[in-house]
């Protein structure tokens, strides 16, 4: 294959690619993201291909093995376009059925349809499913239509057009101006305006400027960046190319977790294919602009998502943040000006260039025309998990309310339980109560509420979640992930954990809450990096919104959510019909009773694991 050497050559290449494809063909998009891999999506895609060939449909039907579709709990997923027939929980054995019935005869297979848990209705079309209907997928959309391992797919959908526009029609300053005016803010958590950062980096003195894509997504349960890299790596590469041209850089790095093997592999393929086509490397698209990207794999330390720690790790040192008030845009990687943005931020760039600043600023909150901090523009991807019916990746416009995300898209809390809180922003985010559900989700509102956007983790909690226990859980995570360099974070987090553990055991005094608050303030003010300064958020936000739960633990020695083991007792009520299920399940052998007789729990033996509660089918176990 020959390199593409101009804007017009790129367009003719695009025409050549699309000309080979029948516009009337049906596309079967099979999710081959990491989640669906667990459901053997690879062999599903292969079987579908075989069956299509067997049926002689290969000219009319194209099987596309795509990246993540987002609705992971329903995997394996597939969608048939243009009809948008959505099949969920598909097994490879059903490939023949799907081809014979749906693709040959147009029959819908009922068992594979999605059933709305709220209305109980079966839904055929993907866009009618509430989980998708209320989203606005700009970044994730293309990932469902293309095979990330085929650059031609990306190009056929308009890929690298923004790059060509930038290289042939714009000056670097004009690119920076557009990004600034778009109000694009960093999706990694800080929310710093990308255009302002780019300009500072461009103007910083140095013989070499570096670009970094932060793909060290460390928040437990969050996988927005992984999915973008897996499903549409070229969008990230194109974003970085545009950034490199604007900033004046010839070397970029993608720092990605080693735990993301599929993302690494798809990205590597994408980089290789872009180099072959002359879209990466020397003299890109025949111009004087040269830029290349290296992949660096991180060992998975949470703290390496912090930019200075990431750069230390990239240089081969221990991933620890450094105490410097000189910004990395001036003295970053190898002490050279370095511009770091995360995966999602880079992926936004080609869209802004291609569709225009006005398109981008029409989405979101506030006014960024005078001040890039004046609002939150564009969409944001969240990873919606926890006690919510529909879990998965959700892309919504900035400013969408928490209620819309949790209830309209997420379908609310399952099993008749009640919503209690949602934690945003990863382990060092805050827990927001039901009274905050109507708050619009944007950088500034979340920060003001005592939480943060973070990179977009969103964990829903129901009334069986103890908020003290949640604060304890996240603090434990941060104790383990603190690098240990500075005193407030290393010592403060573990002391915070000690106090929270005492509260959970019912051994704390009210004075301990004052101590917690004093310590939290000192950590916020005194820690070296953002890990330490935001670490008290789970504690402070639960103290602010759920203080009564702390008081119940301390003053009444009671856990209102019946979670903290030291403070609860399990008893059997008269609904027990003596089915013996609980007695057999109890690992402590603490339950006795004859068949068809009321059972009894020996409180001395019981270690309050809750297995009986989960096993009982007759609602006969009480916990208090």
């Amino acid at each position, binding site marked *: 294959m020959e390199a593409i050497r101009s804007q017009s050559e790129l367009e003719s290449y695009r025409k050549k690619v699309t000309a080979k494809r029948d516009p009337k063909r049906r596309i079967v998009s099979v999710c081959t993201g990491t989640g669906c891999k667990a459901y053997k999506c690879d062999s599903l895609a292969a079987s579908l291909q075989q069956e299509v060939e067997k049926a002689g449909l290969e000219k009319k039907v194209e099987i596309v093995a795509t990246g993540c579709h987002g609705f992971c709990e329903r995997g394996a997923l597939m969608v048939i376009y243009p009809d948008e027939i959505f099949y969920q929980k598909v097994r490879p054995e059903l490939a023949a059925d799907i081809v014979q019935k749906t693709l040959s005869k147009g029959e819908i297979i009922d068992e594979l349809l999605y059933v709305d848990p709220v209305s109980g209705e079966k839904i055929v079309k993907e866009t009618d499913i509430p989980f998708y209907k209320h989203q606005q997928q700009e970044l994730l959309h293309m990932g469902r239509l293309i095979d990330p391992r085929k650059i031609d797919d990306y190009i056929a959908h308009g890929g690298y057009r923004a790059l060509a526009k930038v290289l042939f029609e714009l000056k670097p300053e004009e690119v920076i101006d557009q990004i600034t005016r778009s109000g694009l803010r960093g999706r990694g958590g800080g929310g710093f305006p990308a255009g302002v950062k780019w300009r500072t980096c461009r103007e910083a003195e140095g013989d070499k400027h570096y670009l970094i894509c932060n793909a060290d997504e460390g928040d437990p349960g969050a996988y927005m960046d992984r999915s973008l890299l897996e499903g549409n790596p070229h969008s990230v590469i194109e974003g970085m190319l545009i950034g490199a041209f604007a900033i004046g850089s010839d070397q970029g790095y993608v720092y990605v977790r080693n735990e993301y093997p599929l993302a690494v592999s798809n990205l590597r393929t994408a980089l290789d294919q872009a180099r072959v086509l002359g879209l990466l490397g020397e003299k890109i698209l025949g111009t004087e602009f040269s830029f290349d990207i290296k992949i660096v794999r991180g060992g998975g330390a949470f703290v390496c998502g912090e930019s200075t720690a990431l750069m230390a790790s990239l240089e081969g040192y221990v991933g620890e943040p450094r105490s410097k008030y000189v910004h990395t845009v001036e003295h970053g990687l190898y002490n050279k000006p370095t511009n770091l943005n995360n995966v999602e931020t880079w992926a936004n760039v080609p869209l802004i260039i291609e569709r225009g600043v006005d398109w981008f600023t029409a989405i979101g909150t506030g006014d960024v025309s005078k001040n890039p901090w004046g609002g939150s523009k564009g969409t944001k991807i969240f990873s919606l998990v926890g006690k919510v019916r529909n879990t998965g990746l959700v892309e919504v416009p900035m400013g969408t309310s928490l209620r819309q995300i949790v209830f309209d898209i997420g379908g609310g809390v399952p099993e008749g339980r009640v919503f209690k809180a949602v934690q945003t922003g990863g382990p060092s985010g805050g827990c927001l109560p039901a009274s905050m559900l109507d708050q619009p989700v944007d950088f500034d509102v979340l920060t003001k509420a005592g939480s943060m956007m973070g990179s977009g983790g969103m964990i829903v909690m129901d009334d069986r979640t103890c908020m003290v226990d949640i604060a304890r859980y996240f603090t434990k995570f941060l*104790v383990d992930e603190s690098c*240990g360099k500075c005193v407030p974070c290393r*010592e403060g987090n*573990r002391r915070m954990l000690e106090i929270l553990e005492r509260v959970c055991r019912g051994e704390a005094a009210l004075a301990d809450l004052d101590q917690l608050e004093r310590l939290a303030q000192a950590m916020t003010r*005194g820690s070296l990096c953002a890990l330490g300064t935001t670490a008290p958020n789970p504690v402070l936000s639960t103290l602010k919104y759920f203080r009564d739960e702390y008081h119940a633990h301390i003053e009444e020695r009671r856990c209102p959510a019946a979670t903290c083991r030291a403070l609860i007792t399990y008893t059997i009520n008269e609904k027990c019909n003596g089915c013996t299920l609980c007695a057999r399940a109890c690992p402590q052998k603490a339950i006795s009773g004859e068949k068809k007789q009321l059972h009894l729990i020996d409180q001395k033996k019981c270690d309050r694991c809750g297995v009986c509660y989960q096993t009982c089918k007759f609602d006969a176990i009480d916990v208090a």
Partner: protein
Amino acid sequence: MLNLDINGRRVSARRGTMLLAAIREAGFDVPTLCHHEVLEPYGACRLCLVEVRRPGRKAGRIVTSCSYPVEAGLLVETDTPAVRETRREVLDLLLARAPNASRVRELAAECGLYRSSYPPDQNRDNCILCNLCVRICAKLGFNAISAAGRGPKREIQPPLGEPPADCVGCGSCARICPTDNISLVERAGKRRIWERDFEMVRCKQCGKAYITREYLASRLGQSGLPESHFETCDECSRAALAKTMFAHLVPSEKGDAA
């Protein structure tokens, strides 16, 4: 040179110097545990916190003065309530970690803290993880020890916790340690540090065992000076140098006799 304001006093400082130096130069005191003049700022102990405010800005912020470069017009305060409270909390944490470290106790006492609010760590040594030992060792080019482990499990140790192969027994780590936590024992012409024994070389003049064989070899290699330069201990070398330099001032023995 640029001008800034420290505790209401106008001070000038050279561009590129850190606030801590300017503050101490101006005669104010800010405590530190992980700072040393010959080493790069590290910013781990968080005791040298000060409040800074740029002119025209309403809100100030708390920064570590050891690593914050001086800025023209910057307003610096070293003793605000926020600074005092934060420093006190940090010392409270350190006091629980190293309750027997005298330097920590002194600094804590200066904030009126005599006992930590937290249960003191049992069975822990006096190490406060300031990393001075690791940094001085690296600065000297040996890199024999490092910080290993993460979070509360962090500790200073030689690679794999074994007697360090790259250590030359110079003892700089033990001397720089603010809590005297690194054991250095000398007996019968031998030095023991990091559980490794070093043979000492004796001074040709006074006979004192004054340098380890390995450190001597390293200094010979690094300095390019003749071997004879290192035959005597520092004290004797200094005395000899003084004698030659000031020889003309000392009346010669011959002259005395005459």
